[in-house]
Protein backbone atom coordinates (compact mmCIF):
# COMPACT_ATOMS: atom_id res chain seq x y z
CA UNK A 1 0.00 0.00 0.00
CA UNK A 2 2.71 2.42 1.04
CA UNK A 3 4.86 1.44 -1.89
CA UNK A 4 1.92 1.84 -4.20
CA UNK A 5 1.59 5.44 -3.12
CA UNK A 6 5.30 5.97 -3.67
CA UNK A 7 5.03 4.56 -7.15
CA UNK A 8 2.18 6.97 -7.82
CA UNK A 9 4.39 9.77 -6.56
CA UNK A 10 7.22 8.69 -8.87
CA UNK A 11 4.86 8.60 -11.82
CA UNK A 12 3.66 12.09 -11.05
CA UNK A 13 7.19 13.41 -10.71
CA UNK A 14 8.15 11.84 -14.01
CA UNK A 15 5.13 13.23 -15.75
CA UNK A 16 6.00 16.77 -14.71
CA UNK A 17 9.69 16.50 -15.59
CA UNK A 18 8.99 14.86 -18.93
CA UNK A 19 7.12 18.00 -19.94
CA UNK A 20 10.42 19.89 -19.83
CA UNK A 21 9.78 23.60 -19.80
CA UNK A 22 6.00 23.12 -19.80
CA UNK A 23 3.29 23.25 -22.42
CA UNK A 24 3.71 26.90 -23.27
CA UNK A 25 7.43 26.52 -23.94
CA UNK A 26 6.75 23.40 -26.02
CA UNK A 27 4.24 25.34 -28.12
CA UNK A 28 6.87 27.99 -28.73
CA UNK A 29 9.41 25.36 -29.74
CA UNK A 30 6.95 23.84 -32.20
CA UNK A 31 6.05 27.29 -33.53
CA UNK A 32 9.74 27.74 -34.41
CA UNK A 33 9.41 24.68 -36.63
CA UNK A 34 11.38 22.52 -34.25
CA UNK A 35 10.69 19.20 -32.56
CA UNK A 36 11.14 18.93 -28.81
CA UNK A 37 14.27 17.25 -27.51
CA UNK A 38 12.38 14.09 -26.53
CA UNK A 39 10.58 13.93 -29.87
CA UNK A 40 13.94 14.19 -31.62
CA UNK A 41 15.42 11.29 -29.71
CA UNK A 42 12.30 9.25 -30.38
CA UNK A 43 12.56 9.97 -34.11
CA UNK A 44 16.21 8.99 -34.17
CA UNK A 45 16.44 5.69 -32.29
CA UNK A 46 14.91 2.26 -32.82
CA UNK A 47 11.36 2.05 -31.49
CA UNK A 48 11.17 1.91 -27.66
CA UNK A 49 14.94 1.49 -27.40
CA UNK A 50 15.76 4.67 -25.50
CA UNK A 51 16.40 4.70 -21.78
CA UNK A 52 16.86 8.04 -20.10
CA UNK A 53 19.36 8.67 -17.30
CA UNK A 54 19.52 11.51 -14.80
CA UNK A 55 15.91 12.57 -15.19
CA UNK A 56 15.86 13.93 -11.63
CA UNK A 57 19.00 16.02 -11.79
CA UNK A 58 18.59 19.58 -10.51
CA UNK A 59 20.88 22.56 -10.51
CA UNK A 60 22.25 23.96 -7.26
CA UNK A 61 22.81 27.55 -8.34
CA UNK A 62 21.95 30.11 -5.66
CA UNK A 63 22.80 33.52 -7.13
CA UNK A 64 20.39 35.80 -8.99
CA UNK A 65 17.36 34.08 -7.42
CA UNK A 66 18.23 30.84 -9.16
CA UNK A 67 17.44 28.97 -5.93
CA UNK A 68 13.77 29.78 -6.56
CA UNK A 69 13.79 28.26 -10.04
CA UNK A 70 13.24 24.65 -10.98
CA UNK A 71 14.74 23.61 -14.29
CA UNK A 72 13.55 20.13 -15.23
CA UNK A 73 16.45 17.84 -16.02
CA UNK A 74 18.52 21.01 -16.04
CA UNK A 75 17.74 21.51 -19.71
CA UNK A 76 19.28 18.39 -21.18
CA UNK A 77 18.25 14.80 -21.77
CA UNK A 78 20.80 11.99 -21.68
CA UNK A 79 20.51 8.28 -22.23
CA UNK A 80 21.18 5.39 -24.55
CA UNK A 81 19.28 3.49 -27.20
CA UNK A 82 19.93 1.72 -30.46
CA UNK A 83 19.92 2.63 -34.15
CA UNK A 84 19.58 -0.41 -36.43
CA UNK A 85 20.53 -2.41 -33.34
CA UNK A 86 23.76 -0.48 -32.80
CA UNK A 87 24.10 0.90 -29.27
CA UNK A 88 24.13 4.71 -29.23
CA UNK A 89 24.64 7.23 -26.45
CA UNK A 90 22.69 10.44 -26.82
CA UNK A 91 22.40 13.83 -25.24
CA UNK A 92 19.81 16.33 -26.42
CA UNK A 93 19.61 19.87 -25.13
CA UNK A 94 16.06 20.90 -24.25
CA UNK A 95 15.44 24.44 -25.45
CA UNK A 96 12.12 24.59 -23.58
CA UNK A 97 14.01 24.56 -20.27
CA UNK A 98 15.77 27.90 -19.75
CA UNK A 99 16.61 28.04 -23.47
CA UNK A 100 18.71 24.91 -23.17
CA UNK A 101 21.30 27.04 -21.39
CA UNK A 102 24.32 25.20 -20.09
CA UNK A 103 24.82 25.24 -16.35
CA UNK A 104 27.08 23.11 -14.19
CA UNK A 105 24.65 20.18 -13.76
CA UNK A 106 23.57 20.34 -17.41
CA UNK A 107 27.24 19.96 -18.34
CA UNK A 108 27.73 17.18 -15.79
CA UNK A 109 24.92 15.20 -17.37
CA UNK A 110 26.55 15.59 -20.79
CA UNK A 111 29.98 14.56 -19.53
CA UNK A 112 28.40 11.60 -17.76
CA UNK A 113 26.98 10.24 -21.01
CA UNK A 114 30.25 10.99 -22.79
CA UNK A 115 32.18 8.96 -20.22
CA UNK A 116 29.59 6.23 -20.50
CA UNK A 117 29.92 6.13 -24.29
CA UNK A 118 33.70 5.86 -24.05
CA UNK A 119 33.55 3.13 -21.43
CA UNK A 120 30.97 1.12 -23.36
CA UNK A 121 32.71 1.89 -26.66
CA UNK A 122 29.63 3.12 -28.44
CA UNK A 123 28.96 6.11 -30.71
CA UNK A 124 27.85 9.41 -29.18
CA UNK A 125 25.25 11.66 -30.74
CA UNK A 126 24.85 15.17 -29.35
CA UNK A 127 21.79 17.21 -30.27
CA UNK A 128 22.59 20.89 -29.77
CA UNK A 129 19.80 23.40 -29.17
CA UNK A 130 20.95 25.94 -26.63
CA UNK A 131 21.10 29.66 -25.99
CA UNK A 132 24.63 29.19 -24.67
CA UNK A 133 26.21 29.54 -21.25
CA UNK A 134 23.82 29.97 -18.27
CA UNK A 135 25.10 33.39 -17.29
CA UNK A 136 23.73 33.11 -13.74
CA UNK A 137 26.11 30.23 -13.08
CA UNK A 138 29.17 32.18 -14.18
CA UNK A 139 32.46 30.38 -14.37
CA UNK A 140 30.83 27.05 -13.43
CA UNK A 141 29.14 27.14 -16.80
CA UNK A 142 32.46 27.78 -18.56
CA UNK A 143 34.02 24.94 -16.59
CA UNK A 144 31.23 22.72 -17.92
CA UNK A 145 32.07 23.57 -21.53
CA UNK A 146 35.73 22.92 -20.90
CA UNK A 147 34.96 19.48 -19.45
CA UNK A 148 32.91 18.65 -22.56
CA UNK A 149 35.65 19.79 -24.98
CA UNK A 150 38.26 17.79 -23.11
CA UNK A 151 36.14 14.65 -23.40
CA UNK A 152 35.40 15.32 -27.09
CA UNK A 153 39.14 15.24 -27.64
CA UNK A 154 39.66 12.18 -25.45
CA UNK A 155 36.89 10.29 -27.25
CA UNK A 156 38.10 11.41 -30.68
CA UNK A 157 39.23 8.45 -32.75
CA UNK A 158 37.96 5.96 -30.15
CA UNK A 159 34.20 6.24 -30.58
CA UNK A 160 32.36 8.00 -33.41
CA UNK A 161 31.09 11.40 -32.26
CA UNK A 162 28.25 13.03 -34.14
CA UNK A 163 26.87 16.53 -33.57
CA UNK A 164 23.43 17.58 -34.67
CA UNK A 165 22.76 21.31 -34.66
CA UNK A 166 19.01 21.74 -34.19
CA UNK A 167 18.79 25.28 -32.92
CA UNK A 168 21.24 27.92 -31.87
CA UNK A 169 24.78 26.87 -31.00
CA UNK A 170 26.75 30.01 -30.38
CA UNK A 171 29.86 31.29 -28.70
CA UNK A 172 32.10 28.75 -27.00
CA UNK A 173 29.41 26.09 -27.45
CA UNK A 174 30.36 25.68 -31.13
CA UNK A 175 33.62 24.03 -30.20
CA UNK A 176 32.08 20.79 -29.05
CA UNK A 177 30.61 20.10 -32.53
CA UNK A 178 33.81 21.35 -34.14
CA UNK A 179 35.78 18.72 -32.20
CA UNK A 180 33.48 15.88 -33.27
CA UNK A 181 33.62 13.77 -36.42
CA UNK A 182 30.46 14.80 -38.24
CA UNK A 183 28.22 17.85 -37.94
CA UNK A 184 24.63 17.76 -39.20
CA UNK A 185 22.71 20.97 -39.97
CA UNK A 186 19.12 21.67 -40.98
CA UNK A 187 17.86 24.54 -43.12
CA UNK A 188 16.37 27.46 -41.15
CA UNK A 189 16.92 25.66 -37.82
CA UNK A 190 20.69 25.43 -37.34
CA UNK A 191 22.60 28.53 -36.33
CA UNK A 192 26.27 28.42 -35.44
CA UNK A 193 28.66 31.26 -34.85
CA UNK A 194 31.28 32.47 -32.42
CA UNK A 195 30.06 36.07 -32.34
CA UNK A 196 26.48 36.86 -33.27
CA UNK A 197 25.05 39.54 -35.56
CA UNK A 198 24.57 42.01 -32.68
CA UNK A 199 28.21 41.93 -31.62
CA UNK A 200 29.32 42.25 -35.22
CA UNK A 201 27.11 45.28 -35.62
CA UNK A 202 28.41 47.00 -32.50
CA UNK A 203 32.07 46.26 -33.09
CA UNK A 204 32.36 46.40 -36.84
CA UNK A 205 29.25 48.26 -37.93
CA UNK A 206 28.37 45.43 -40.34
CA UNK A 207 24.80 44.23 -40.59
CA UNK A 208 24.18 40.55 -41.25
CA UNK A 209 21.32 38.19 -40.48
CA UNK A 210 21.80 35.07 -38.35
CA UNK A 211 21.03 32.94 -41.40
CA UNK A 212 23.67 34.63 -43.57
CA UNK A 213 26.19 34.57 -40.76
CA UNK A 214 25.91 30.98 -39.57
CA UNK A 215 22.92 29.24 -41.09
CA UNK A 216 22.83 25.70 -42.42
CA UNK A 217 23.79 26.68 -45.96
CA UNK A 218 26.68 28.84 -44.82
CA UNK A 219 28.27 25.99 -42.91
CA UNK A 220 27.68 23.38 -45.59
CA UNK A 221 28.75 25.57 -48.54
CA UNK A 222 31.11 28.28 -47.32
CA UNK A 223 32.78 27.49 -44.00
CA UNK A 224 32.94 23.70 -44.31
CA UNK A 225 32.04 23.31 -40.62
CA UNK A 226 29.08 21.08 -41.43
CA UNK A 227 29.25 17.67 -43.11
CA UNK A 228 25.59 16.94 -43.81
CA UNK A 229 22.86 19.37 -44.81
CA UNK A 230 19.14 18.67 -44.89
CA UNK A 231 15.90 20.52 -45.43
CA UNK A 232 14.09 19.11 -42.39
CA UNK A 233 14.73 17.42 -39.09
CA UNK A 234 13.16 14.21 -40.40
CA UNK A 235 15.57 14.14 -43.35
CA UNK A 236 18.44 14.89 -40.97
CA UNK A 237 17.60 11.86 -38.79
CA UNK A 238 17.49 9.62 -41.87
CA UNK A 239 20.98 10.88 -42.83
CA UNK A 240 22.30 10.15 -39.34
CA UNK A 241 20.89 6.61 -39.46
CA UNK A 242 22.46 6.05 -42.84
CA UNK A 243 25.83 7.25 -41.58
CA UNK A 244 25.56 5.00 -38.53
CA UNK A 245 25.00 2.05 -40.86
CA UNK A 246 28.37 2.73 -42.52
CA UNK A 247 30.62 3.21 -39.50
CA UNK A 248 31.83 0.88 -36.73
CA UNK A 249 30.80 1.31 -33.09
CA UNK A 250 34.36 2.04 -32.04
CA UNK A 251 37.96 1.96 -33.21
CA UNK A 252 38.50 -1.67 -32.23
CA UNK A 253 35.86 -2.95 -34.61
CA UNK A 254 35.06 -2.96 -38.27
CA UNK A 255 31.82 -1.59 -39.63
CA UNK A 256 28.97 -4.07 -39.85
CA UNK A 257 29.06 -6.12 -43.04
CA UNK A 258 26.10 -6.01 -45.37
CA UNK A 259 25.11 -8.59 -48.00
CA UNK A 260 27.19 -7.88 -51.14
CA UNK A 261 25.39 -6.32 -54.08
CA UNK A 262 26.44 -5.50 -57.63
CA UNK A 263 26.49 -1.88 -58.79
CA UNK A 264 23.41 -0.74 -60.69
CA UNK A 265 23.66 -1.34 -64.44
CA UNK A 266 22.89 2.29 -65.31
CA UNK A 267 26.36 3.21 -64.11
CA UNK A 268 28.53 1.86 -66.89
CA UNK A 269 32.12 2.53 -65.96
CA UNK A 270 33.24 2.29 -69.58
CA UNK A 271 31.04 5.19 -70.64
CA UNK A 272 31.57 7.77 -67.91
CA UNK A 273 35.07 9.12 -68.42
CA UNK A 274 35.83 11.04 -71.65
CA UNK A 275 39.15 10.19 -73.35
CA UNK A 276 40.30 13.79 -73.51
CA UNK A 277 41.72 14.60 -70.03
CA UNK A 278 40.54 18.17 -70.39
CA UNK A 279 36.86 17.21 -70.63
CA UNK A 280 34.78 17.03 -67.44
CA UNK A 281 32.60 14.26 -65.98
CA UNK A 282 31.13 13.53 -62.57
CA UNK A 283 33.52 11.41 -60.50
CA UNK A 284 30.56 10.33 -58.36
CA UNK A 285 29.34 8.29 -61.31
CA UNK A 286 32.62 6.36 -61.26
CA UNK A 287 32.23 5.76 -57.52
CA UNK A 288 28.65 4.55 -58.07
CA UNK A 289 29.83 2.33 -60.88
CA UNK A 290 32.06 0.35 -58.51
CA UNK A 291 30.19 0.60 -55.19
CA UNK A 292 27.72 -2.04 -53.99
CA UNK A 293 24.22 -1.17 -55.20
CA UNK A 294 25.73 2.12 -56.48
CA UNK A 295 25.10 3.43 -52.99
CA UNK A 296 27.28 6.38 -52.01
CA UNK A 297 26.90 8.58 -48.92
CA UNK A 298 28.68 11.79 -49.76
CA UNK A 299 30.25 13.84 -46.97
CA UNK A 300 30.55 17.65 -47.30
CA UNK A 301 28.71 17.53 -50.60
CA UNK A 302 28.57 21.25 -51.28
CA UNK A 303 31.86 22.44 -49.84
CA UNK A 304 35.16 22.18 -51.74
CA UNK A 305 33.31 20.30 -54.48
CA UNK A 306 36.54 19.84 -56.45
CA UNK A 307 37.13 16.76 -54.33
CA UNK A 308 34.51 14.16 -53.46
CA UNK A 309 34.60 12.10 -50.25
CA UNK A 310 32.15 9.68 -48.71
CA UNK A 311 31.20 6.15 -47.77
CA UNK A 312 30.13 3.18 -49.81
CA UNK A 313 30.48 -0.59 -49.67
CA UNK A 314 32.52 -3.13 -51.60
CA UNK A 315 31.27 -6.71 -51.29
CA UNK A 316 29.39 -5.64 -48.17
CA UNK A 317 32.35 -4.00 -46.45
CA UNK A 318 32.35 -0.25 -45.74
CA UNK A 319 35.00 1.70 -47.65
CA UNK A 320 35.83 5.39 -47.83
CA UNK A 321 35.94 6.87 -51.32
CA UNK A 322 38.06 9.87 -52.22
CA UNK A 323 38.04 11.21 -55.76
CA UNK A 324 39.14 14.32 -57.60
CA UNK A 325 36.11 15.93 -59.21
CA UNK A 326 36.92 17.07 -62.80
CA UNK A 327 33.49 18.70 -62.92
CA UNK A 328 34.58 21.49 -60.56
CA UNK A 329 37.82 23.45 -61.00
CA UNK A 330 39.09 20.53 -63.09
CA UNK A 331 39.49 18.56 -59.83
CA UNK A 332 42.47 20.54 -58.56
CA UNK A 333 43.75 20.34 -55.03
CA UNK A 334 43.45 23.66 -53.22
CA UNK A 335 43.25 24.87 -49.63
CA UNK A 336 39.72 23.63 -48.94
CA UNK A 337 39.77 20.40 -50.92
CA UNK A 338 43.04 19.39 -49.23
CA UNK A 339 41.53 20.03 -45.85
CA UNK A 340 38.41 18.05 -46.74
CA UNK A 341 40.24 15.03 -48.11
CA UNK A 342 42.84 14.89 -45.34
CA UNK A 343 40.26 14.92 -42.59
CA UNK A 344 38.19 12.22 -44.25
CA UNK A 345 41.23 9.99 -44.76
CA UNK A 346 42.12 10.38 -41.07
CA UNK A 347 38.55 9.46 -40.12
CA UNK A 348 38.67 6.28 -42.19
CA UNK A 349 42.07 5.38 -40.80
CA UNK A 350 40.92 5.85 -37.19
CA UNK A 351 37.91 3.59 -37.72
CA UNK A 352 39.37 0.76 -39.77
CA UNK A 353 37.74 1.74 -43.03
CA UNK A 354 39.73 0.93 -46.20
CA UNK A 355 40.28 3.90 -48.50
CA UNK A 356 39.72 3.81 -52.26
CA UNK A 357 41.12 6.82 -54.12
CA UNK A 358 40.24 7.79 -57.69
CA UNK A 359 42.87 10.07 -59.20
CA UNK A 360 42.23 12.54 -61.99
CA UNK A 361 43.76 15.93 -61.29
CA UNK A 362 45.85 18.52 -63.11
CA UNK A 363 47.70 19.51 -59.93
CA UNK A 364 47.26 22.40 -57.53
CA UNK A 365 45.18 25.53 -58.11
CA UNK A 366 47.43 28.44 -59.09
CA UNK A 367 46.86 31.90 -57.60
CA UNK A 368 48.13 34.46 -55.12
CA UNK A 369 45.00 33.91 -53.01
CA UNK A 370 45.80 30.19 -52.72
CA UNK A 371 49.47 30.72 -51.89
CA UNK A 372 48.62 33.39 -49.34
CA UNK A 373 45.92 31.22 -47.79
CA UNK A 374 48.57 28.60 -47.14
CA UNK A 375 48.02 26.00 -49.86
CA UNK A 376 51.44 24.65 -48.91
CA UNK A 377 50.50 23.74 -45.37
CA UNK A 378 46.96 22.71 -46.29
CA UNK A 379 48.20 20.64 -49.21
CA UNK A 380 50.65 18.98 -46.85
CA UNK A 381 47.69 17.66 -44.84
CA UNK A 382 46.80 15.34 -47.72
CA UNK A 383 50.31 13.92 -47.85
CA UNK A 384 50.34 13.52 -44.09
CA UNK A 385 46.95 11.85 -43.88
CA UNK A 386 47.62 9.33 -46.65
CA UNK A 387 51.16 8.58 -45.44
CA UNK A 388 49.99 8.07 -41.89
CA UNK A 389 46.99 5.90 -42.73
CA UNK A 390 47.56 2.20 -42.11
CA UNK A 391 44.18 0.90 -43.30
CA UNK A 392 44.18 -0.76 -46.75
CA UNK A 393 44.77 1.95 -49.36
CA UNK A 394 43.73 1.28 -52.94
CA UNK A 395 44.30 3.77 -55.72
CA UNK A 396 43.00 3.96 -59.27
CA UNK A 397 44.50 6.52 -61.64
CA UNK A 398 41.80 7.22 -64.21
CA UNK A 399 43.35 9.90 -66.42
CA UNK A 400 45.74 12.62 -65.35
CA UNK A 401 48.02 12.46 -62.35
CA UNK A 402 50.45 15.31 -62.63
CA UNK A 403 53.23 16.51 -60.41
CA UNK A 404 52.68 16.93 -56.68
CA UNK A 405 49.06 15.95 -57.15
CA UNK A 406 50.12 12.49 -58.33
CA UNK A 407 52.23 11.98 -55.21
CA UNK A 408 49.60 13.35 -52.83
CA UNK A 409 46.68 11.28 -54.10
CA UNK A 410 47.54 8.01 -52.35
CA UNK A 411 50.47 7.12 -54.56
CA UNK A 412 52.63 4.04 -54.08
CA UNK A 413 55.26 6.34 -52.56
CA UNK A 414 52.92 7.14 -49.67
CA UNK A 415 52.43 3.37 -49.23
CA UNK A 416 49.27 2.70 -51.14
CA UNK A 417 48.80 -1.08 -51.12
CA UNK A 418 47.52 -1.29 -54.68
CA UNK A 419 47.81 1.28 -57.44
CA UNK A 420 45.97 0.58 -60.67
CA UNK A 421 45.95 2.79 -63.75
CA UNK A 422 43.62 2.89 -66.70
CA UNK A 423 45.26 2.73 -70.14
CA UNK A 424 44.54 6.43 -70.73
CA UNK A 425 46.29 7.49 -67.52
CA UNK A 426 48.88 10.25 -67.85
CA UNK A 427 51.37 10.03 -65.02
CA UNK A 428 53.85 12.85 -65.49
CA UNK A 429 55.44 15.87 -63.89
CA UNK A 430 52.95 18.12 -65.64
CA UNK A 431 50.47 18.16 -68.50
CA UNK A 432 51.87 17.61 -72.01
CA UNK A 433 51.28 21.25 -73.05
CA UNK A 434 53.22 22.70 -70.14
CA UNK A 435 56.00 20.12 -70.35
CA UNK A 436 56.52 20.56 -74.10
CA UNK A 437 56.65 24.33 -73.69
CA UNK A 438 59.52 24.00 -71.25
CA UNK A 439 61.49 21.09 -72.70
CA UNK A 440 61.28 22.19 -76.32
CA UNK A 441 61.31 25.95 -75.71
CA UNK A 442 64.22 26.52 -78.09
CA UNK A 443 62.89 24.32 -80.89
CA UNK A 444 59.49 25.99 -80.68
CA UNK A 445 60.88 29.54 -80.58
CA UNK A 446 63.23 29.05 -83.52
CA UNK A 447 60.84 27.06 -85.73
CA UNK A 448 59.45 28.58 -88.93
CA UNK A 449 55.96 27.80 -87.69
CA UNK A 450 56.19 27.84 -83.85
CA UNK A 451 52.56 26.85 -83.35
CA UNK A 452 52.91 23.80 -85.57
CA UNK A 453 56.15 22.86 -83.83
CA UNK A 454 54.49 23.23 -80.44
CA UNK A 455 51.63 20.93 -81.43
CA UNK A 456 54.09 18.39 -82.77
CA UNK A 457 56.19 18.47 -79.61
CA UNK A 458 53.12 18.18 -77.38
CA UNK A 459 52.11 15.10 -79.36
CA UNK A 460 55.60 13.69 -79.06
CA UNK A 461 55.67 14.22 -75.31
CA UNK A 462 52.21 12.69 -74.96
CA UNK A 463 53.25 9.52 -76.75
CA UNK A 464 56.50 9.11 -74.86
CA UNK A 465 55.62 10.16 -71.34
CA UNK A 466 51.93 10.88 -70.84
CA UNK A 467 50.96 7.24 -70.32
CA UNK A 468 50.87 4.73 -67.49
CA UNK A 469 53.64 2.48 -68.80
CA UNK A 470 56.61 4.59 -67.68
CA UNK A 471 55.34 4.39 -64.08
CA UNK A 472 54.38 0.71 -64.53
CA UNK A 473 57.90 -0.07 -65.76
CA UNK A 474 59.24 1.22 -62.45
CA UNK A 475 56.65 -0.71 -60.44
CA UNK A 476 55.09 2.51 -59.15
CA UNK A 477 51.78 1.17 -60.31
CA UNK A 478 50.92 -2.48 -59.97
CA UNK A 479 48.87 -2.93 -63.04
CA UNK A 480 47.43 -1.17 -66.06
CA UNK A 481 43.82 -2.29 -66.20
CA UNK A 482 40.76 -2.01 -68.38
CA UNK A 483 38.10 0.27 -66.89
CA UNK A 484 35.70 -2.68 -66.81
CA UNK A 485 38.10 -4.56 -64.52
CA UNK A 486 38.14 -1.83 -61.88
CA UNK A 487 35.62 -3.27 -59.43
CA UNK A 488 37.02 -6.77 -59.72
CA UNK A 489 40.53 -5.61 -58.88
CA UNK A 490 39.40 -3.35 -56.06
CA UNK A 491 37.51 -6.29 -54.56
CA UNK A 492 40.67 -8.35 -54.86
CA UNK A 493 42.61 -5.61 -53.09
CA UNK A 494 40.08 -5.46 -50.25
CA UNK A 495 39.94 -9.28 -49.99
CA UNK A 496 43.66 -9.74 -49.56
CA UNK A 497 44.24 -6.83 -47.18
CA UNK A 498 42.00 -8.09 -44.39
CA UNK A 499 44.97 -8.83 -42.14
CA UNK A 500 47.13 -5.89 -43.14
CA UNK A 501 49.52 -4.90 -40.37
CA UNK A 502 52.27 -2.33 -40.38
CA UNK A 503 55.12 -1.76 -37.94
CA UNK A 504 55.64 1.86 -37.09
CA UNK A 505 58.22 3.60 -34.91
CA UNK A 506 56.99 4.27 -31.42
CA UNK A 507 55.91 7.86 -30.91
CA UNK A 508 53.49 9.83 -28.79
CA UNK A 509 51.90 11.41 -31.82
CA UNK A 510 53.01 13.06 -35.02
CA UNK A 511 52.75 16.74 -35.74
CA UNK A 512 50.43 17.06 -38.71
CA UNK A 513 50.28 20.47 -40.39
CA UNK A 514 47.15 21.79 -38.69
Amino acid at each position, binding site marked *: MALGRKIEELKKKREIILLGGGEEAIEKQVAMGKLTARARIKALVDKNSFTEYDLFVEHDARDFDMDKKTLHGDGVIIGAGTIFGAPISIFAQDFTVAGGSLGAMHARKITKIMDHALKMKMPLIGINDSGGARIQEGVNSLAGYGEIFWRNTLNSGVIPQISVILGPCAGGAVYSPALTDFVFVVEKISKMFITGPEVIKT*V*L*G*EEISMEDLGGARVHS*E*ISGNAHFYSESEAECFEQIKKLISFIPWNNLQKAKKFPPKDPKPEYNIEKIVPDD*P*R*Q*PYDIRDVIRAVADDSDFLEVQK*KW*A*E*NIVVGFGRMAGETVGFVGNQ*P*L*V*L*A*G*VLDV*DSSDKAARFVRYCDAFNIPIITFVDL*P*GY*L*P*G*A*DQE*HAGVIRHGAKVLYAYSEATVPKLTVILRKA*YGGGYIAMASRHLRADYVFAWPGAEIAV*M*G*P*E*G*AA*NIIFRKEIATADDPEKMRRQKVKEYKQKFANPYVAAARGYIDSVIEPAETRKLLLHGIDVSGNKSIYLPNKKHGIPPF
Partner: protein
Amino acid sequence: MEKKKESRQSTGDKKPRFKSLIIDGSKYRTYYNRKFENRKEYKIRDPYKIVSYIPGTVLKVIAKEGQEVHKGDTALILDAMKMKNRIVFERGAIVKAIHVAEGEKVPKDYLMIELSPVPGQNQ
Protein backbone atom coordinates in the same frame (compact mmCIF):
# COMPACT_ATOMS: atom_id res chain seq x y z
CA MET B 1 27.53 43.38 -58.10
CA GLU B 2 24.38 41.85 -59.52
CA LYS B 3 26.40 39.76 -61.90
CA LYS B 4 28.48 38.39 -59.06
CA LYS B 5 25.37 37.28 -57.23
CA GLU B 6 24.26 35.34 -60.24
CA SER B 7 27.56 33.60 -60.66
CA ARG B 8 27.38 32.51 -57.00
CA GLN B 9 24.78 30.05 -58.14
CA SER B 10 27.20 28.42 -60.52
CA THR B 11 27.50 25.23 -58.52
CA GLY B 12 24.20 25.66 -56.75
CA ASP B 13 20.81 24.46 -57.71
CA LYS B 14 20.53 26.28 -61.03
CA LYS B 15 22.07 24.88 -64.15
CA PRO B 16 25.73 25.93 -64.11
CA ARG B 17 27.73 26.73 -67.21
CA PHE B 18 31.06 25.24 -68.13
CA LYS B 19 34.02 27.56 -68.07
CA SER B 20 37.68 27.02 -68.77
CA LEU B 21 40.55 26.78 -66.35
CA ILE B 22 44.15 26.83 -67.58
CA ILE B 23 46.71 24.92 -65.58
CA ASP B 24 50.26 24.45 -66.87
CA GLY B 25 49.21 25.44 -70.36
CA SER B 26 46.36 22.92 -70.57
CA LYS B 27 42.85 24.27 -70.86
CA TYR B 28 40.25 22.33 -68.86
CA ARG B 29 36.50 22.50 -69.31
CA THR B 30 34.97 22.68 -65.85
CA TYR B 31 32.65 24.50 -63.45
CA TYR B 32 33.94 27.14 -61.07
CA ASN B 33 32.96 27.01 -57.42
CA ARG B 34 31.77 29.92 -55.35
CA LYS B 35 35.09 30.55 -53.69
CA PHE B 36 36.94 30.66 -56.99
CA GLU B 37 34.37 32.99 -58.53
CA ASN B 38 34.61 35.35 -55.58
CA ARG B 39 38.37 35.25 -55.17
CA LYS B 40 40.10 38.57 -54.73
CA GLU B 41 42.68 39.57 -57.24
CA TYR B 42 46.02 40.32 -55.65
CA LYS B 43 46.91 43.97 -55.71
CA ILE B 44 50.32 45.39 -54.93
CA ARG B 45 50.06 47.54 -51.84
CA ASP B 46 50.71 51.23 -52.45
CA PRO B 47 53.09 52.38 -49.68
CA TYR B 48 51.83 55.94 -50.10
CA LYS B 49 48.28 55.05 -49.12
CA ILE B 50 47.25 54.29 -45.55
CA VAL B 51 44.11 52.16 -45.51
CA SER B 52 42.23 50.82 -42.51
CA TYR B 53 43.20 47.20 -41.82
CA ILE B 54 40.16 46.83 -39.61
CA PRO B 55 36.81 48.65 -39.45
CA GLY B 56 36.53 51.13 -36.60
CA THR B 57 36.07 54.71 -35.48
CA VAL B 58 38.69 57.42 -36.00
CA LEU B 59 39.28 58.72 -32.49
CA LYS B 60 41.94 61.30 -33.16
CA VAL B 61 43.76 62.55 -36.26
CA ILE B 62 47.28 63.58 -35.32
CA ALA B 63 48.93 64.13 -38.70
CA LYS B 64 48.20 67.32 -40.63
CA GLU B 65 47.98 67.85 -44.36
CA GLY B 66 51.21 69.16 -45.86
CA GLN B 67 53.22 68.02 -42.84
CA GLU B 68 56.49 66.11 -43.27
CA VAL B 69 56.32 62.95 -41.19
CA HIS B 70 58.93 60.38 -40.17
CA LYS B 71 58.85 56.63 -39.81
CA GLY B 72 57.18 55.73 -36.51
CA ASP B 73 55.19 58.97 -36.15
CA THR B 74 51.56 58.50 -35.22
CA ALA B 75 49.11 59.23 -38.01
CA LEU B 76 45.85 58.70 -36.15
CA ILE B 77 44.14 56.66 -33.47
CA LEU B 78 41.65 54.09 -34.76
CA ASP B 79 39.25 52.70 -32.17
CA ALA B 80 38.46 49.12 -33.14
CA MET B 81 37.77 45.86 -31.27
CA LYS B 82 37.71 47.82 -27.96
CA MET B 83 41.33 48.85 -28.57
CA LYS B 84 42.73 52.28 -29.33
CA ASN B 85 45.01 51.37 -32.22
CA ARG B 86 47.89 53.71 -32.99
CA ILE B 87 48.31 53.90 -36.76
CA VAL B 88 51.91 54.88 -37.49
CA PHE B 89 53.73 55.96 -40.64
CA GLU B 90 55.90 53.23 -42.08
CA ARG B 91 58.19 55.69 -43.87
CA GLY B 92 59.12 59.34 -44.05
CA ALA B 93 56.77 61.26 -46.36
CA ILE B 94 54.66 64.35 -46.89
CA VAL B 95 51.01 64.07 -45.91
CA LYS B 96 49.19 64.79 -49.15
CA ALA B 97 45.59 64.36 -48.07
CA ILE B 98 43.61 63.21 -45.05
CA HIS B 99 40.29 61.58 -45.94
CA VAL B 100 38.91 60.96 -42.46
CA ALA B 101 37.67 63.19 -39.67
CA GLU B 102 37.60 62.57 -35.93
CA GLY B 103 34.54 60.59 -34.94
CA GLU B 104 34.14 59.09 -38.40
CA LYS B 105 33.35 55.38 -38.72
CA VAL B 106 35.44 53.70 -41.39
CA PRO B 107 34.99 50.28 -42.99
CA LYS B 108 37.86 47.88 -43.65
CA ASP B 109 40.31 48.80 -46.44
CA TYR B 110 39.17 52.44 -46.41
CA LEU B 111 41.68 54.99 -47.74
CA MET B 112 42.40 57.18 -44.72
CA ILE B 113 45.56 59.07 -45.59
CA GLU B 114 47.47 59.71 -48.82
CA LEU B 115 51.17 60.46 -48.79
CA SER B 116 53.69 61.73 -51.27
CA PRO B 117 57.46 61.27 -51.29
CA VAL B 118 59.63 63.88 -49.63
CA PRO B 119 61.14 65.92 -52.50
CA GLY B 120 64.77 65.18 -53.13
CA GLN B 121 64.74 61.91 -51.19
CA ASN B 122 65.29 58.65 -52.98
CA GLN B 123 62.61 56.17 -52.13
